[in-house]
C-alpha cells in the first residue's frame, strides 16, 4: 500500500505498477510485443499495447510511455505530441507515464545502449521512434475497423481519436477497436505523415503536467511514502576526499525518532522516523575525519596554478594554419584572460530517493535521469544483478545535470543504507540544501587565455585559445568515447568548433587534477567556452572599429544557421537603433547540442552595478514540436544563465566549501529577471534540443552590453563579484 501515491499526470490513483507490466513482463522481444503478449495484456487490462511506447484503453485513453525524465523541460508534452500526431489521437485523450528502467526497450538512441536523459537529446532521439510507434498503432486500429466494417483500410480516415469510413458513414472511437486491434500483427514500415499535414506537431498544445503541478498533486521522489519507510540523512566530510576515522553516536541515539546510525562509504547515516528526527540526530553526531587524502587547497590557489599552466602549450584540440606566425605578423593583437568559478546545480528539489531492498530485489523511486547507470551502480552496491533493480521514475524538481551522475552517488548511498539495515525498512535518503551546495559535482572551475590578431584591414587572422580545468569525463565510463588524445570533448566544445572564418586557429587544453568532484551543468562546455569566444569576438570587432553584429555576420558566411538566428535576434532587438545614455546592447551567438541560438541583451548601468532589462532571443532547433515549450526553455535558460552570470560561485577555503544555502549561493530572483522575447526560425531540419542551448549566449551578450554601455570589459564570472 502506498498512501498518497497518485498518478502524477492524471491525478488518479497511480496504476503504473500494473500498467507497466505490459512492458516488463519478460514477454517483450525487441521493439514490439508479440501477439500473444498483446492479447494477454488486452484481456487482463482492457488495453491495446502495440509496442513499448503506447497503450490504448477501452476507455479511449492513450497512454504514452515516456523513456525520458520530465525535469521541467517539457519532454512529456513533446514526446506525447510526436506519438499522438502519427496516431491521430485527440490531445485530450493523451496521458503520459514514465517508462520502467529497461535499456533494451528504452535506451536513448544517442547514448547507445544506455537509458537516460541529457545533452538535450530527448526529442531528437525520439522523433522517428515515436512517430513510427504512433503510426503502427494507428495502422492496427484502421485494419481492425476495416475488418469489422468490411471496407478497404485505405478508405478509412482517422482524426482526433475518431476512426471513420466516409462512404458508409461509420465511425468508431479507439476504445471500441482495441480488442480487435490487439489481435493483429504489428505492421512494419508504415508510411509516416508528410510534415505539411501535421496537426499537433508545431502547435501550442498545453503542457500535460500543468494541472498536477499547480494543485500540489504532482509526485516527486520526496513525496513518495511507503509503508514502514524510514528517512536517512548522511553526514559527509567537510573536505572532499576525506573519510570517516571514528564517530560517536550516543547523543544521536538519544534523539527521539532516531532508529539507527550506520557507516557507509560516503559518511555516517542517521536513520529516523522522519526528516526532522534524522536532521536533529545528525546535528548531534561527533565524527573524526581522516583527511590524509583530502583536497585542502583554496580555490584562489588552484586558479593560480591554472593561470601558470595557461602560459604553456596544452593538448591540441584543433589546429588550423600557423597561429604563432599569424600572431607575430598581426597589425593589432588582443590578449584576454577569463576566470570561471565552480558552479552548483542546486535543483529546487534537493537530491533524494527511496529504496526498498530485499534479498532478491532492489526497488528505487527517484527523479531518475540515468536509469541504466543507476541500475548498474545500485546493483553493485546491493550485490544483485542489474535486472533485479527496478526503477520507478517520477517527476524531478529540476536537475540541470545533477541527477545524471556516473557514480549514481545519491542512489548508491541509499542502497548502502538500506543494506546496512538488512533491508528491514524502505529508506528515503534526503540531502539537505547544505548537503547539496557543499556536496560537490560542480561545473568545473576554468581559466581561459586567448590571444587573437587582426590584419591591417581589421580582419581576424589569428586565434589562440587555451583552456585549463578539470575533465568531467575522465574516470567515468564515458571517457573512452569522449576523451581523445588527452582532450575531453566536453572541456572544449563550443571553442574547438568555433564557426568564425579565422585562418590560423588553435584550441588547446590543460586537464588538471583537483580533488573536487565535477559534473556536467546545463550546457556543459558551452557554459564557459561561449563566454570566452563571444567576448573576444566582440573585442576584435571593437579593435577593428566595426559593428559587433556585422563583424560576426561577415565571419559566418559558411554557417547559414548561425547567421539566420543572429540576423533574427538583431532585427527583433532593433539592433542599431539609439538607446538612452547609460544603456547598452550586446549580442552573442552560439551553437550547442545542434541547436543555434543568438541573443541580444539590453543593460542599464546603475552606478557601480547594472540591470539586464531585456533579452531578445532567436533559436533554430529544427522542426518545432511545441513552440510554447521552446519559448519556455529559452526563457528559463536565459534566467538560469543570468543567475550564474550575475552572482553564482562556489569557492573553497583550504578545501572547505564556503557556501551552504541560498543566502550565500544566490540563484536569480524575480526582481532580476529581464523581459524576454523569443523568436523561432522556421525549419525543416530534424528536431534538436532546447533544454540547454538557451544558456550559453546569455552571459557574453550581457558582458558585451556592459561594454557597450560603459566601455568596461568584464572577463570573469560572476559579473557582480568582479
Amino acid at each position, binding site marked *: 500500500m502506498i498512501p498518497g501515491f497518485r498518478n502524477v499526470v492524471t491525478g488518479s490513483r497511480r496504476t503504473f505498477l500494473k500498467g507497466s507490466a505490459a512492458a516488463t513482463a519478460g514477454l517483450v522481444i525487441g521493439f514490439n510485443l508479440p501477439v500473444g503478449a498483446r492479447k494477454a495484456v488486452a484481456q487482463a487490462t482492457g488495453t491495446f499495447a502495440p509496442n513499448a511506447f503506447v497503450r490504448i484503453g477501452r476507455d479511449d485513453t492513450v497512454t504514452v510511455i515516456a523513456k525520458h525524465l520530465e525535469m521541467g523541460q517539457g519532454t512529456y508534452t513533446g514526446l506525447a505530441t510526436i506519438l499522438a500526431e502519427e496516431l491521430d489521437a485527440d490531445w485530450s485523450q493523451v496521458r503520459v507515464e514514465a517508462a520502467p528502467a529497461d535499456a533494451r526497450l528504452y535506451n536513448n538512441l544517442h547514448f547507445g545502449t544506455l537509458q537516460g536523459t541529457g545533452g538535450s537529446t530527448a526529442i531528437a532521439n525520439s522523433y522517428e521512434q515515436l512517430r513510427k510507434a504512433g503510426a503502427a498503432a494507428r495502422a492496427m486500429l484502421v485494419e481492425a475497423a476495416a475488418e469489422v466494417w468490411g471496407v478497404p483500410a485505405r478508405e478509412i480516415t482517422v482524426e482526433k481519436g475518431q476512426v471513420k469510413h466516409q462512404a458508409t458513414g461509420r465511425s468508431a472511437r479507439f476504445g471500441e477497436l482495441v480488442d480487435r486491434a490487439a489481435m493483429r500483427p504489428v505492421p512494419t514500415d508504415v508510411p509516416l505523415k508528410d510534415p505539411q499535414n501535421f496537426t499537433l506537431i508545431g502547435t501550442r498544445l498545453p503542457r500535460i503536467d500543468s494541472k498536477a503541478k499547480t494543485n500540489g498533486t504532482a509526485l516527486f521522489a520526496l513525496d513518495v511514502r511507503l509503508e514502514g519507510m524510514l528517512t536517512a540523512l548522511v553526514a559527509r566530510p567537510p573536505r572532499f576526499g576525506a573519510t570517516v576515522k571514528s564517530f560517536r553516536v550516543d547523543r544521536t541515539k538519544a534523539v527521539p525518532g532516531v532508529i539507527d546510525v550506520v557507516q557507509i562509504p560516503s559518511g555516517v547515516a542517521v536513520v529516523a522516523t522522519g526528516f526532522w528526527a534524522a536532521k536533529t540526530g545528525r546535528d548531534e553526531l561527533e565524527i573524526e575525519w581522516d583527511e590524509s587524502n583530502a583536497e585542502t587547497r583554496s580555490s584562489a590557489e588552484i586558479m593560480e596554478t591554472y593561470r601558470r599552466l595557461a602560459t604553456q602549450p596544452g593538448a591540441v584540440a584543433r589546429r588550423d594554419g600557423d597561429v604563432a606566425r599569424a600572431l607575430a605578423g598581426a597589425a593589432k593583437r588582443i590578449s584576454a584572460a577569463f576566470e570561471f568559478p565552480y558552479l552548483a546545480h542546486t535543483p529546487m528539489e534537493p537530491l533524494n530517493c527511496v529504496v526498498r531492498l530485499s534479498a532478491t530485489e532492489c526497488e528505487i523511486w527517484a527523479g531518475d535521469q540515468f536509469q541504466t547507470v543507476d541500475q548498474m551502480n545500485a546493483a553493485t552496491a546491493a550485490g544483485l544483478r542489474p535486472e533485479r533493480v527496478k526503477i520507478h521514475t517520477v517527476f524531478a524538481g529540476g536537475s540541470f545535470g545533477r541527477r545524471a551522475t556516473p557514480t549514481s552517488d545519491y542512489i548508491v548511498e541509499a542502497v548502502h543504507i538500506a543494506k546496512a539495515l538488512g533491508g528491514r525498512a524502505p529508506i528515503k535518503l534526503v540531502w539537505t540544501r547544505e548537503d547539496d551546495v557543499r556536496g560537490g559535482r560542480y561545473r568545473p572551475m576554468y581559466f581561459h587565455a586567448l590571444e587573437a590578431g587582426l590584419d591591417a584591414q581589421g580582419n581576424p587572422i589569428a586565434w589562440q585559445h587555451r583552456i585549463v580545468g578539470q575533465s568531467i569525463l575522465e574516470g567515468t565510463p564515458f571517457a573512452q568515447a569522449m576523451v581523445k588524445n588527452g582532450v575531453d570533448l566536453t572541456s572544449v566544445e563550443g571553442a574547438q568548433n568555433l564557426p568564425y572564418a579565422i585562418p590560423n586557429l588553435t584550441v588547446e587544453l590543460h586537464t588538471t587534477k583537483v580533488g573536487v568532484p565535477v559534473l556536467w551543468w546545463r550546457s556543459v562546455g558551452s557554459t564557459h567556452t561561449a563566454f570566452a569566444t563571444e567576448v573576444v569576438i566582440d573585442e576584435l570587432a571593437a579593435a577593428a572599429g566595426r559593428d559587433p553584429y556585422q563583424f560576426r555576420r561577415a565571419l559566418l558566411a559558411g554557417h547559414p544557421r548561425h547567421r539566420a538566428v543572429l540576423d533574427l535576434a538583431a532585427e527583433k532587438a532593433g539592433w542599431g537603433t539609439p538607446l538612452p545614455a547609460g544603456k547598452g546592447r550586446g549580442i552573442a551567438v552560439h551553437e550547442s547540442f545542434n541547436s543555434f541560438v543568438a541573443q541580444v541583451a539590453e543593460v542599464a548601468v546603475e552606478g557601480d552595478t547594472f540591470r539586464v532589462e531585456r533579452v531578445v532571443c532567436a533559436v533554430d532547433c529544427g522542426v518545432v514540436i511545441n513552440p510554447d515549450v521552446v519559448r519556455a526553455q529559452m526563457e528559463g535558460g536565459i534566467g538560469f544563465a*543570468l543567475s550564474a552570470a550575475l552572482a553564482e560561485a562556489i569557492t573553497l577555503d583550504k578545501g572547505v566549501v564556503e557556501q551552504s544555502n541560498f543566502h550565500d549561493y544566490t540563484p536569480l530572483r524575480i526582481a532580476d529577471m529581464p523581459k524576454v522575447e523569443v523568436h523561432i526560425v522556421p525549419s525543416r531540419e530534424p528536431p534538436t534540443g532546447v533544454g540547454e542551448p538557451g544558456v550559453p549566449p546569455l552571459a557574453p551578450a550581457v558582458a558585451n552590453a556592459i561594454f557597450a554601455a560603459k566601455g568596461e570589459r568584464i572577463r570573469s564570472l560572476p559579473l557582480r563579484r568582479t
Partner: protein
Amino acid sequence: MTISLNLNGQPISLDVDPDMPLLWAIREVVGLTGTKFGCGMAQCGACTVHLDGEPTRSCVTPVGAVEGRNVTTIEGVSGRVAQAVQEAWQRLDVVQCGYCQSGQIMSAIALLQQTPKPTDDEIDAAMNGNICRCATYVRIRAAIHEAARTMEG
C-alpha cells in the same frame, strides 16, 4: 505533546515535537506533500503556506507556534482568487519542473488578496522570496496579471 490546529478547514491534533517545523508536520505526519522543502531556512519559499491568511515559510515555523491557528496548504486553497491564480498558471503554462510552484501560487494568492491589481514592481516585491530555479519568472509575472484581469471581469 499534542498540538491542535486547523488545517485546510479541518481541526486536527498532532502528537509531535513542538520544535518540529510545520513543513515536516504537514508533509510527514499529516501526509500532505504539495508543500515542498527547498532550503529549510526561509530563503526559497517552496514551503509557503497561509497562516491565518498570511503567506508563511513553514520550514522555519515550529509546529508548536501554530497551536489553535488556521493553516492552509496548496491542497486546501479555494475561493475566487485561488481559482483565478491556478487557472492563469495553467492557461499560460507557467510550470517547468513544478517543484517551486506550490509556493509560488501560495504567494501569488496572498498578493492578489491584498493587492487585486498589482504592478510589475509590486509583483517583484511580493514574489522575491520565492526562488524558481527553472526561472519561470516571466510567466509568473504574466500569470499574476492575467489572474488579476480575470477577477475584474
